[in-house]
């Protein structure tokens, strides 16, 4: 065993890690030669300076050393109590990890810049969630440059609104429990604007299975919502378009095939609409269609789905509604439109066909009955007609 104090001293002095001995009040009592480089000041200046006891529940923790020229040097710190001549000193070991962090993070930054072409925002954080790299799409979405977010935690991007706090907490909980998370989350851009993003967070482990990074990929839902809006809505009236209604129809058909029940459709078109276009022009015609759409939305219930089926044809899907109730709504809409004075054209009327879905009937058959009903209504115009129920062949 080495019992000689000078032998221990030379070990400490050879160490390339910084070793400090602190008095019980946290003042530096001894610093080894390596400390000179880490703190950027002569050893004599260090002794007698206040450092403060290190308190952490972790085995080692990150401490930033204030360096007069280099700024702040990241170190990994460990501490232990040792007794010398009856006094309890704190021994502190500081390992400069700034070089390791720089190399590692430089590699990550190069990797993230390589993801230039990716239009999803990307952010890599350490296991303690401090940001080490982001890609250009991150900057495009959040407004923050790489320099501005480095070393910060994603806390910087939070909305700061109480109603969002719970979803952040929930996300962290799931992330800790299951290791990954995907979902929608609200954040704030640098310009203060709050936006919704679709976020996917995955962990990266090292060879020993230790969590080292999180990789977060996200898309701006503002864009996704805008695309969805474009894909599902009619550009002129803002109602659902034919494709979107088709999806809802398929869903309703599946529902009644499985659980029974009923739904109805109202199909209507404008009487003499060609004459409106011919005498007032297409711009006026478009405005009439927009007004009809507005009146329709006023009349239908929240659960009904109104769509522009094409040209001057509209369709309303009424879930859990039989033909009698659908007829009541159709009549109300017919009267409402007939009673409206359209500023550019005067009065406009519509004709409507109504059909309730029958189990075992195909959509094509139902649409055919609906068409027949509308055709009959059209014969006298400004009228709503119920489609005949399907014949025994279809039952």
């Amino acid at each position: 065993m080495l019992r000689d104090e000078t032998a221990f001293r030379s070990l400490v002095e050879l160490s390339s890690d910084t070793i400090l001995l602190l008095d019980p009040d946290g003042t530096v009592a001894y610093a080894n030669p390596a400390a000179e480089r880490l703190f950027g000041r002569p050893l004599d200046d260090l002794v007698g300076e206040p450092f403060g006891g290190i308190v952490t529940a972790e085995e080692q923790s990150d401490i930033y050393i204030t360096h007069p020229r280099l700024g702040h040097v990241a170190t990994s710190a460990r501490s232990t109590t040792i007794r010398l001549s009856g006094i309890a000193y704190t021994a502190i070991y500081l390992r400069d990890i700034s070089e390791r962090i720089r190399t590692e993070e430089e590699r990550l930054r190069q990797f993230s810049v390589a993801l230039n072409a990716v239009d999803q925002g990307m952010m890599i954080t350490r296991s303690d969630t401090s940001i080490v790299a982001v890609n250009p799409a991150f900057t495009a979405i959040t407004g923050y440059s790489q320099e501005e977010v480095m070393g910060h935690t994603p806390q910087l991007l939070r909305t700061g609104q109480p109603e969002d706090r719970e979803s952040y907490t929930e996300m962290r909980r799931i992330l800790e429990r299951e290791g990954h998370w995907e979902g929608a989350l609200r954040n704030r851009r640098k310009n203060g604007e709050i936006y919704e993003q679709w976020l996917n967070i995955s962990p990266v482990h090292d060879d020993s299975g230790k969590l080292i990074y999180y990789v977060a990929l996200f898309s701006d839902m503002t864009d996704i919502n805008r695309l969805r809006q474009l894909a599902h809505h009619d550009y002129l009236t803002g109602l659902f378009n034919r494709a979107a209604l088709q999806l809802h129809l398929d869903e309703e058909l599946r529902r009644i095939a499985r659980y029974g029940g009923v739904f109805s459709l109202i199909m209507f078109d404008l009487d003499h609409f060609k004459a409106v276009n011919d005498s007032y022009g297409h711009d006026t015609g478009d405005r009439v269609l927009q007004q009809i759409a507005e009146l329709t939305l006023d009349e239908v219930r929240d659960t009904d789905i109104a769509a522009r089926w094409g040209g001057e044809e509209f369709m309303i899907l009424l879930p859990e509604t039989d033909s009698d109730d659908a007829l009541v709504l159709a009549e109300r809409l017919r009267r409402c439109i007939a009673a409206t004075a359209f500023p550019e054209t005067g009065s406009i009327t519509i004709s409507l066909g109504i059909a309730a879905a029958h189990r075992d009937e195909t959509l094509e058959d139902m649409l055919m009955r609906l068409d027949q009903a509308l055709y009959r209504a059209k014969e006298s115009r400004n009228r709503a007609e119920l489609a005949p129920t399907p014949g025994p062949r279809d039952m």
Partner: protein
Amino acid sequence: MTAIVLRLYIAGKTATAERAIGNLRRLITEIEETGQRVDLEIVDILEQPQLAEDERILATPVVIKKLPEPLRRIAGDLSALDQVLIGLDLQVR
């Protein structure tokens, strides 16, 4: 009763700094539940380097108890709350 005055020095909003802030706030809640008042000031020495020099800050994050005397300072992420209390010579009972 005079307030307990704490000053936390950090160097930028690093993850360690955020943890230290969170731990210190938890601790202050505990202290304040005993009826004592705590004034906390957080100083980012990247923004105010002169203050770091005045206070001879060797390492961050570090919390300094200015009042009541005696002066105490504790560095680290402050995650062991009981030890922070002992180190700062404060009581929650």
